[in-house]
């Protein structure tokens, strides 16, 4: 006898942050559509503020960073859902603050005294996830594979994890601090070939843009060169700051190289959307948010104009 399965959708509290919703909304758009097909829903909560971002704000006032971060954790803890941040910076702040609240009773007490002034409380008990936890661990590769209608055959794709998504491993609960594999698994699921390249976990360079632009771009250029040398057709990534650095600023970074180079960059949601046949969704936003043309990729997988 066949058992009728009514698949219930999984709901997460969506932590929006600043950059994705307002500067790179195509990240949110494509990922929401992909998640929709996987029966996952993101619910926003008006109570959240900036995480605060982890690259410069802690160096201005570390105690305020913990306090504002704990306030966001308190907002998330008020619902019974797990929280997911699409942005790696937000994810890093929330998971480090959550971890510290749980393991350091001194700061937990200090911060909660302040939160009390707003009638709030944070324990660090909420589960904070990034999109790889949701896709790879909660939904699972098998379920994703079922929704792939347009495999990205013939494409070689290099993953760029970025630092803040993965480290520190005791707070991020990722698979490995030096050689994570979850994105490679997703690249295989969409029918493409993951490309191995030198120094995969090297930083994109963005965090030091505010203090030393030339060093920042030097690192970006090195990264792009190594990926290009390994024969990749494109980069896939998750972090909006890495995207800004490796994609939006690619022309500027390339000036630090002796050679010419043109490396398309896809957000993870765009890669999955293309493989699920959501071509129009990706293409209609590609001119506005991509400075490096993605048309060569589309041609290669046979969906070009």
């Amino acid at each position, binding site marked *: 006898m066949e058992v009728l399965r009514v698949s219930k959708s999984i709901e997460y509290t969506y932590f929006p942050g600043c950059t994705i919703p307002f500067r790179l909304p195509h990240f949110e758009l494509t990922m929401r559509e992909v998640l929709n097909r996987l029966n996952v829903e993101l619910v926003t909560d008006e109570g959240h503020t900036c995480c605060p971002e982890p690259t410069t704000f802690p160096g201005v006032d570390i105690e305020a960073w913990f306090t504002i971060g704990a306030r966001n954790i308190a907002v998330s803890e008020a619902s019974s859902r797990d929280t997911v941040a699409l942005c790696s910076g937000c994810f890093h702040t929330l998971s480090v603050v959550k971890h510290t609240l749980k393991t350091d009773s001194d700061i937990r007490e200090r911060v909660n005294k302040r939160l009390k002034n707003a009638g709030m409380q944070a324990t660090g008990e909420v589960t904070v996830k990034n999109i790889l936890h949701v896709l790879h661990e909660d939904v699972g590769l098998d379920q994703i594979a079922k929704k792939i209608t347009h495999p990205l055959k013939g494409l070689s794709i290099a993953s760029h994890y970025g630092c803040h998504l993965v*480290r520190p491993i005791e707070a991020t609960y990722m698979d490995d601090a030096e050689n994570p594999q979850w994105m490679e698994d997703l690249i295989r699921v969409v029918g493409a070939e993951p490309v191995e390249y030198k120094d995969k976990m090297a930083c994109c360079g963005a965090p030091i843009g505010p203090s030393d632009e030339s060093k920042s771009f030097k690192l970006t250029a090195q990264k792009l060169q190594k990926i290009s040398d390994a024969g990749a057709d494109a980069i896939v990534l998750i972090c909006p700051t890495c995207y800004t650095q490796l994609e939006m600023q690619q022309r500027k970074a390339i000036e630090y190289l002796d050679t010419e180079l043109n490396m398309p960059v896809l957000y993870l949601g765009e890669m999955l959307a293309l493989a699920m046949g959501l071509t129009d969704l990706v293409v209609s936003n590609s001119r506005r948010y991509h400075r490096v043309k993605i048309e060569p990729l589309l041609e290669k997988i046979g969906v070009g104009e």
Partner: protein
Amino acid sequence: MTDHGISSDLEFRKWILLQPEGKTLLRCYQCGRCTAACPIAMIDESFNPRLFLEKLILADESLAQERLIWTCLTCEQCEVRCPEHVKIPEILVLAKVRGLLSGNTPQTALDRARAILSEGRTILVSEPMHKTREKMGLPSLGPPPVAQLGKILKELGTVERVESVESRYGGAEGE
């Protein structure tokens, strides 16, 4: 201007040890794996995490006044390779915090902090940005509860401190 002389400050060292993960500084035995792993040290030999830790262990506060400290990527490659799991990036952050009042903070870092404290966001959100979300069919996001931020930060005096600071990074490079 950078002060290369040693200015010993036990109070600063004590404060570091009281911060979350600050005590991990005492586990450092100066092996130098952090510097070997650091991508900035690779392109700038004056950036030396092992030496930074040595200074802090010796209660030398001059690090807080060095611009160099702000070229730490916070990528945590040093920490991943550290055999003693010293929380190096978090400790270097404490030196940055210590340099705030004397202006050793990049202008962009101050601008971002001010935006976060006054708007609840790192960027100033414009009407066209809301419109784009609407056109894409994305849920609208209201203004963050900034008044509440003020309430919980009052005791710290963060807003007043950040407002009062002037960055020395304003002018041309290498001043």
